[in-house]
């Protein structure tokens, strides 16, 4: 019983950072129609921001996390300007270019930090007990930060003029531009937020995962599973699917093993693709 409850708490932590990553990926897809294969590497860059600023240069952890968000957000803007904008009519080209970008980010990380795992000391000590399950402050911090960030994003998208523009572009780019919404401007903001969310997820979890330049691979696999299950293009679906996947994955890992958990996750995604290619919570298919 204790193990079940502890696993549920662990799954909640996993769900929180997975949701950040998946929501970012969906956001980019929604506005630009491109599957960003380099999303896992954006997470990795966020993690190395913390390795560099916090672990090596001893800046405060929070500052390093914020820097991770902003820096990776700007990397996203660079991607939008140099690749996705010229390839707007060519979604497959955008995807393939993002694979090229992934290789560049990976190699730069190897140059900067070497191939070995970066070590990040914990930013806080201590833990709390919730009905017998242990949750370290470090993990609790990730959960809280993820909830705050997603809530802020939700409010931003619902309330602000920009949020409406984003949603308009995601629904119908042509109609949006007729209404005087600048596609370029909107894409830039979407890319900043989408990439920034991946970056901040990497930054927040850096003390917990020991980043390597190749960590992006497992991250992008996870993110794909979540956005397919959640329905590509649905932000709410991505959050729900992240929770669902995190629980399935964590439980299977605990009670069987990690590889089986990965196989189960991929099989889940394949099953969703077969039965309902638009995802469990998705609306319509993009042309």
């Amino acid at each position, binding site marked *: 019983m204790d193990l079940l409850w502890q696993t549920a708490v662990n799954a909640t932590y996993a769900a929180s950072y997975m949701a950040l990553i998946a929501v970012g990926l969906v956001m980019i897809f929604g506005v630009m129609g491109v599957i960003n294969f380099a999303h896992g590497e954006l997470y990795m860059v966020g993690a190395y921001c913390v390795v560099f600023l916090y672990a090596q240069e001893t800046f405060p952890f929070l500052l390093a996390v914020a820097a991770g968000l902003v820096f990776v957000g700007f990397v996203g803007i660079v991607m939008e300007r140099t690749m996705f904008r010229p390839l707007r009519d060519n979604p497959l080209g955008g*995807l393939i270019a993002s*694979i*090229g*970008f992934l*290789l560049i980010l990976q190699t*730069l990380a190897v140059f900067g930090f070497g191939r070995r795992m970066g070590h990040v000391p914990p930013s806080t000590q201590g833990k709390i007990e919730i009905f017998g399950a242990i949750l370290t402050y470090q993990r609790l911090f990730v959960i809280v930060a993820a909830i705050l960030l997603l809530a802020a994003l939700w409010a931003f998208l619902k309330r602000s003029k920009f949020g409406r523009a984003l949603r308009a572009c995601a629904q119908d780019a042509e109609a949006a531009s007729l209404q005087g919404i600048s596609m370029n401007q909107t894409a830039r903001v979407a890319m900043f937020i989408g990439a920034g969310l991946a970056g901040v997820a990497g930054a927040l979890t850096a003390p917990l995962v020991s980043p390597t330049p190749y960590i992006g691979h497992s991250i992008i696999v996870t993110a794909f599973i979540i956005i397919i299950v959640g329905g590509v293009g649905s932000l709410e679906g991505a959050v729900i699917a992240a929770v669902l996947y995190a629980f399935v994955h964590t439980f299977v890992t605990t009670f069987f*093993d990690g590889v*089986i958990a990965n196989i189960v996750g991929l099989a889940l995604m394949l099953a969703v*693709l077969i039965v309902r*290619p638009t995802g469990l919570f998705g609306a319509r298919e993009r042309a």
Partner: protein
Amino acid sequence: MQAAGTGGLVRRTAWRLRLVFLFAMLAALPYLLSYSQQEIAVLLVINVLLVCSYRLLTLTGEWSLGHVVIMGVGAYASALLAKQFGVPVPLSMLLGGCMAAATAALLSFPLFRMKGFYFLIGSFAAGEIIRLIWKRFTDPFGGPKGLKRIDPFPDIEASFLSVDFYEPVNYYFLALAVVSVSLFVLYRIERSRIGLTFHAIHWQDRLAESVGVDTFRYRTLAFVIASFFAGIAGGLYAHYVGAVNPTRFSVDQMVYVLVWAIVGGTATFHGPILGVVVLTVINEIVLRALGLDTARPLIYGAILILSVLYLPNGLESLGPRLQARWRRWRGGPAAAGREPA
């Protein structure tokens, strides 16, 4: 309009001469290379088959991310057949190709319910599942370490002829022969009505379907043929290197296949071959000479982005484009309106 008679004969003879010349060059090549370069040449020949088989699949308009895993299916199957059941290696390679084709036939039922992105991601997921199965099940797949000491290709020990396939030169000729035959088959398929139908499905699948083309069957056919030859490439690889493991067939390797195909250009048969040869030469000779080994993925990534942005039809389009520019530059009135073929 070209007169079919003498013009056709002249062109065909010229074409044959060029082919003879090409084979003479390929036969002389290993003797101009160092031992380690010969080893690279063997892998290059195998990769040519890999990327050409990949292109056949893309003719129907679908891009898979599982092709390298399918190659791995051929490699694992051939290695296991030889190791565990003592199947003679040439036969095991053929069976490895069949195994890869059968895997593709099976996968086509879920995968061809999808198109475009969904197919891409679906093929990725299917490939990862296969790879994780190799990783998880030590018996018989050897787990993360994979299979080692795979039986080599049997030596030829006749009284007048003795060929040791441990020598890269000899294996190079073996691979060259197998790959040449395979490429010929792939070429014939593309030039036949089957190839026309593949193209038709790519450009207008609903129109093709309306005149009786069973698009699902033809997509599956393309997938199965492509996978068979990927499996053959895998067999050639396994019995040359002598070891396979799940990492060798990961998505990173798939990225290289994509790069070769896209940088070379998938519109023509020779485009991907051009891509894999040029990039391998840059990679192995130029980068190695400059001592930029660790920068290799970065340079590949940059080349990939630049070619998607500025050379969307690949290297193979460069020749006609330069020719057209040259003609325009000379400014002959006859050349003005002519488009490159």
